[in-house]
């Protein structure tokens, strides 16, 4: 007998595919994740709390989440603009620019880190220029943000792009014929429609940036309390064979990330439920 739990569908194989999905997710995500909790449970709650509230850990959390957020915000603005340009205009070399967007995904992050450090170091091309106006490039939170912006860009562009492609230019023409100027059209017509996708892209870029390691360690300088990111702190703990301490910090990150992602998803749902299909 069929239960009401499963809606009847003409597509066969629901039980099989659901079973596979759960198995696969367990194997790839849930089991490794649970190991994290099992390892941490060798600590008492007081010990756990001490590890994740240690000044050095808090500074690392602050730096990781702060720079990741800043980078995601930068990407929100410039990623949207790039997506807009790629959708709305045709120009020579457009396909190359389009391919270039994916570049940060394909490049080994360590290579990106070394390159960016070269550029932003006080002797580098960009760093030299920045120093002359009194900004330190590499080995500061600014440098970290630059690296995180670099790796997060494709996420925003690739999520916003298809939504912009779907946006009928006639919607904008309708707004113009009703007397709206360009800014009103962008603010009242385009932004609300792309907002859910933009939020998804920003969330992805943010999530990616929180866990980023390879490209950051070179440009960060890794001074405890100043430019030491949370993933690096975890590595440091591991190198000292403090496995429980390392997983405790990881769980702290995980919980904060989870809360932030859940909030972002809630807003995404809230803003997209009225968009309908047409």
């Amino acid at each position: 007998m069929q239960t009401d739990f499963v809606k009847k569908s003409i597509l066969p194989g629901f039980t099989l595919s659901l079973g596979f999905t759960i198995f696969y997710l367990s194997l790839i995500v849930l089991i490794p994740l649970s190991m994290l909790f099992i390892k941490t449970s060798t600590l008492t709650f007081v010990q756990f709390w001490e590890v994740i509230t240690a000044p050095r850990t808090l500074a690392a959390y602050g730096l990781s989440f702060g720079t990741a957020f800043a980078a995601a915000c930068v990407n929100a603005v410039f990623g949207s603009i790039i997506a807009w340009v790629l959708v709305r205009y045709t120009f020579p070399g457009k396909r190359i620019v389009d391919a270039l967007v994916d570049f940060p995904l394909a490049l080994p992050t360590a290579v990106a880190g070394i390159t960016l450090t070269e550029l932003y170091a006080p002797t580098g091309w960009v760093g030299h220029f920045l120093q002359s106006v009194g900004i330190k490039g590499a080995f500061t939170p600014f440098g970290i943000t630059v690296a995180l912006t670099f790796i997060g860009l494709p996420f925003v562009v690739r999520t916003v792009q298809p939504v912009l492609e779907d946006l009928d230019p006639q919607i904008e023409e309708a707004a113009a014929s009703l007397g709206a100027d360009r800014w009103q059209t962008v603010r009242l017509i385009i932004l609300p429609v792309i907002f859910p996708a933009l939020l998804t892209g920003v969330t992805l870029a943010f999530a990616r940036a929180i866990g980023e390691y390879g490209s950051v360690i070179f440009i960060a300088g890794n001074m405890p309390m100043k430019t030491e990111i949370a993933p690096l702190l975890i590595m440091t703990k591991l190198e000292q064979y403090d496995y429980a301490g390392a997983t405790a910090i990881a769980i702290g990150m995980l919980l904060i990330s989870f809360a932030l992602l859940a909030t972002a998803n809630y807003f995404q749902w809230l803003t997209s439920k009225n968009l309908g299909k047409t």
Partner: protein
Amino acid sequence: MSIEVRNIHKKFGAFKALDNVSLKVEHGELLALLGPSGSGKTSLLRIVAGLDFHDSGQVLFSGQDAREQKVKDRGVGFVFQHYALFRHMTVFDNIAFGLRVQPPHLRPSEQAVRAKVMELLKLIQLEWVVDRFPWQLSGGQRQRIALARALAVKPRVLLLDEPFGSLDAQVRKELRMWLRRFHDEAHITTLFVTHDQEEALEVADRIVVMNQGRIEQVGTPEDVYHNPANAFVLNFLGNVNFFHCRLAEGKAIIGETELEVPGLSVDQPKIAKLYVRPNQFKLSRGPGKGSSLKAIVEYLNPAGTLVKATLKTETGERIHVEITQEEYRQLKLVKLMPVFVSLKDVSYSEYVQTAG
């Protein structure tokens, strides 16, 4: 407000969308731009709206050149084929949009906006959808909302781009009668684009028939239907049969058969194309006086106001004929029955050359 376009040229790459088009739309007129796709009718409409730019020529609004006026300052209400409603806004917000984006010193109070929106919803008889979203409405309802939205800003001109093109036949008929009634009350200068000749003939005060970027004919529906300027207009405004023939005094010689053509006078024999509408034939059971074309009934459709029949002549040509139900009963027409065809009238004849 009157609209005049003078010598408009517009090219998309090598394609001539508009080729020296001039047209005057009188104040308060309901004008249809009719033509097949690619005839330039939508381009012309978009240029008048300011959504596209012409290469050369002039667009005049009440005698003033509108070239420097941006879309938002032209005071045109534009209705798109696919509605172009703002999908993240309720019906209310959609209609109120044009009022709310006005500069602060002109913007009406929220109360006035509400009153205006409700007034428009009443006009389109959709007061009950005020809080819905566009995607919750049917096509016909959406298009009426789009119309209300365009009317909210009190446009001086209403421009409609195939407004009923993506609706069901039934809804389309209702809406076009509604548009006609609305226009009779509001007298707002209206220009609408359509490829549906029936729609144009039924709704418009005057019809502009366009083809390949040029205007073929401008006139009242009656005028363009009964006195087509050329074969294209004739063809586009309804089904028509055409025959290659030789014309001599009062007669058309089609193959071996001589047919009498009422009202035709040619001074010398000519090779011609003869265009005959389906309702301009007379059918009889036997050969009448004068000569007639012999054919058999190949296909018959008596369902409708008129009975449609396809006849096949002895030379294998097909003729589409429409007769009244009364004639149909008198003739006792059935499939494969032989009939004799003569001409009551001819719509149009085009002379190819003088026969020797």
